[in-house]
């Protein structure tokens, strides 16, 4: 079997800033407050990227740095204490998460040093995460926050483990309905999930110690996995991610395998899901995809789409942790082999400009990309799907297979609907324009 090719480019690519993780994390952790310590640029990004969410009395805010903060004329400790007291008074959260940004990193604000002092003085836990664009891309913001939360998890559980197997903790932020669905899938195999990191309440953080087995549900959580292993001596279960019926089945099987349980009825469940989405598969089968890469879900999604019968030309990805994603990579290779398609090239830290040249020559049926490129590509006759939607849609587990396919097939279905009237617009005569740059 041929092994996967990895390429690393210049890193001049478009993605969201990792502080965007506050958007979903503040909704997930219901009693939290996220304070992003940064500049107008960060604030402007958040208010534009999160659109209307800003108006629903969000539990996040900017601590906007002013010139006095940058030049050291104001004391960070006093300023942060003042703001946190105000937050405590107005919102009374159970935890305040400080999100460090590029600016606090460059001016070396000692957030980790200041936080414990203020924490005792105002009597609210303060978790510090550095989700900056110097080190991280988009979804990795969640990784920094969860890794910081690991330290707040209790060492020992107050309750006795009711299950016949060692305690199992799942990590990764997913909507509560997905939590229920994934818990259910494991229950079917006689596995009880002891806890989730994060839980919907800060006070419900799971106990982490050497007896605990942990398993990730999102592919961008490598720092969290490392922290759990090194600081709490937990065993992290290597598994593909529960995205698509193939991924979900492999994920459940890997967990069963660790607990010496032989899975029951999984194959039937997978087959049944595949059968139920046949209408979508008809649309996408044989079509080609190009991932420009921006949210680290790319490997798992590509693997699923190959299983659906698509051909993947390139998997762009911001950051590739080959250890944390090893099982997912193995499954990708296996899937390619079984489907009889060549292994796609994995491009780390892609260069968007170079990618556009490749898209021009390959002319894929679908490009999964950020919004910066979507409209210009569509105008050049290339069909696109906005990648961020995969982050904000429920895509985990057996039950959400339809959701992913709904997203992937939507542009193709739209094209089909519009093509019916194509000659009426005389689009053919515009083919010259396709992919010409200017």
């Amino acid at each position, binding site marked *: 079997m041929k092994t996967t090719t990895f390429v690393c480019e210049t*890193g*001049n690519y*478009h*993605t*969201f*800033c*990792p*502080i*965007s993780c506050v958007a979903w994390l503040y909704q997930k952790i219901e009693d939290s407050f996220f304070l992003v*310590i940064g*500049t*107008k*640029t960060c*604030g*402007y*990004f958040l*208010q*534009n*990227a999160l*659109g*209307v969410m*800003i108006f629903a009395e*969000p539990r996040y*805010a*900017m*601590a*906007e*740095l*002013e*010139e006095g*903060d*940058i030049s050291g004329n*104001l004391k960070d400790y006093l300023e*942060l204490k003042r*703001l946190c007291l*105000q*937050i405590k008074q107005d919102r009374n959260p159970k935890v305040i998460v400080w999100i460090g*940004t*590029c*600016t606090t*990193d*460059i*001016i070396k604000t000692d957030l980790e040093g200041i936080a414990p002092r203020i924490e005792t003085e105002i009597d609210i836990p303060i978790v510090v995460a550095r989700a*900056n*664009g*110097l*080190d*991280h*891309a*988009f979804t990795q913001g969640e990784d920094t926050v969860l890794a910081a939360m690991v330290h707040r998890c209790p060492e020992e559980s107050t309750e006795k483990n009711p299950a016949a197997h060692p305690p199992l903790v799942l990590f990764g932020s997913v909507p509560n309905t997905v939590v229920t669905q994934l818990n259910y899938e494991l229950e079917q195999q006689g596995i009880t999930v002891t806890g989730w990191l994060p839980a919907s309440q800060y006070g419900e953080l799971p106990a982490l110690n050497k007896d605990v087995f942990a398993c990730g549900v999102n592919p961008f959580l490598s720092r969290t996995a490392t922290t759990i292993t090194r600081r709490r001596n937990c065993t992290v279960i290597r598994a593909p991610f529960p995205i698509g019926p193939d991924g979900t089945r492999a994920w459940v099987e890997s967990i069963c395998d660790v607990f010496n349980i032989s899975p029951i009825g999984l194959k039937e469940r997978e087959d049944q899901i595949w059968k139920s989405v046949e209408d979508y598969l008809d649309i996408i089968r044989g079509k080609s995809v190009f991932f420009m890469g921006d949210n680290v879900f790319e490997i798992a999604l590509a693997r699923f789409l190959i299983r659906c019968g698509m051909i993947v030309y390139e998997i762009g990805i911001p950051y590739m942790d080959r250890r944390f994603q090893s099982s997912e990579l193995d499954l990708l290779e296996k899937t390619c082999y079984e489907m009889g398609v060549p292994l796609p090239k994995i491009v780390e830290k892609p260069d968007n*400009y170079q990618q556009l040249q490749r898209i021009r020559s390959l002319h894929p049926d679908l490009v999964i990309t*950020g*919004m*910066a*490129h979507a*409209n*210009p590509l569509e*105008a050049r006759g290339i069909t696109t799907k906005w990648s961020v939607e995969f982050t904000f849609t429920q895509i985990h587990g057996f039950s959400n297979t339809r959701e992913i396919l709904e997203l992937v097939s939507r542009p193709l279905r739209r094209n089909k609907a519009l093509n019916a009237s194509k000659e009426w617009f005389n689009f053919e005569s515009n083919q010259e324009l396709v992919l010409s*740059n*200017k």
Partner: protein
Amino acid sequence: MKLAYWMYAGPAHIGTLRIASSFTNVHAIMHAPLGDDYFNVMRSMLERERDFTPVTASIVDRHVLARGSQEKVVENIRRKEQDEKSDLVIVTPTCTSSILQEDLQNFVDRASIESVGDVLLADVNHYRVNELQAADRTLEQIIRFYLERSELQKTTILQKTTEPSVNIIGLSTLGFHAQHDYRELKRLLNDLGIKVNLVIPDGCEVSTLKKLPQAWFNLVPYREIGLMTAKYLQKNFSMPYVSTTPIGMIDTATCIREIRHIVESVNPNKSNTNLTSHFESYIELQTRFVTNSTWFSRSIDCQNLTGKKAVVFGDATHAASVTKILARELGIRVICAGTYCRHDSDWFREQVQGFCDEVLITENHTHVADMISRTEPSAIFGTQMERHVGKRFDIPCGVISAPVHIQSFPLGYKPFIGYEGTNQIADLVYNSFTLGMEDHLLEFFGGHDTKSVALLNQIEENDLNWSEDGMKELQQIPGFVRGKVKRNTEKFAREQGITEITKQILYAAKEARGA
């Protein structure tokens, strides 16, 4: 540090990028960490732009922090120059990169030695100016750069055009209804017999900038972007400029008259009376017959708007213009007019003086929301933020200024400027208020809203008790003013030390404050 949830004007580099991406064949390189190129998304989404936004980030990552950018920025400039064959590359720092204190000017100098095109470093301080001020500065910087060069090369075209002509300064990407305004402006100037010499920066090539001085004068339709350039051109090329925004019937006429004065003074040979009568008859024709809004404001329908209370908030240009229209042209009472352009607050106060009860200058959206909840207007004219405040208080809102979202980039023709603009604004204003007859009928029949008042109770404080008959009476009040009446009554009851609100108290409160 300040606690902030929302901001009206963006950071400085957004202004620079708006200018850079407005020109044709100009590329901007941001010295920025990953994720700061959010401008591309905004442009592509809001303007539904078909072309790739000519903005690239030269990424500042951990390696750059450790070793400095070294060759990276220079290499990125070179590469862009080769790939895109840009006439000009503008390097812009971001707030993060500006504290690194790297010598970007040095990179720019080095890159420009080998470049065929030009390379400039945007001269803006990220901690002192906002998006609008930065846009104004960057535009002036580019104009100055090219005119100084053409001066040296003696290629500047100083000879005025034979026919009266104008440069329109300040039309840029992501401007509020800017594309529509431009079309309307061009039509207006064409009707007056004035040729448009150059429009900057929108769609302009830098190589044509040497032609700027051949226009007879400059027109700056929006105060926020372009005044610095107009002043520079006045000082160095003695070009007069008009900065009266032609929004609203009266200001459009004022703007046209200012143009007439300039045209007369530049070309004194032409028979003045002819020009005067030509311009004046044009204004009269447009005002009386071509637009509908003059007649509309005199029609019976508009009578119902008389004395209705409104609040206006937005950038200086639009908020001032709309305040004046509401007060002078539609007979609406503006209880408060405000702007977030603090740097231009003196001008704003001067403009709205006499047209509103109160002026609010703030960049804090909660101050605006507080003012709205205190004054309880019948309609709000503001930005996207005020629209949401209006939703919260159940007060209709017309959007008249940036910041806006995609809904305010309409596909249809919707200028704010000129005579068609007055029609659009009249529609916007009229549709924002509850329609006159509907208003009466609702009041007469007790409203069509039969939702229980109990819902309202849940969100209010509970120190007051509504008696059964008081509640019944409250339910009779039309839905869209019920909340207001309820609040007023409760306020009244608290002031009077009353805990149980009966029908009588409700009436007493109404009488006491005319609720």
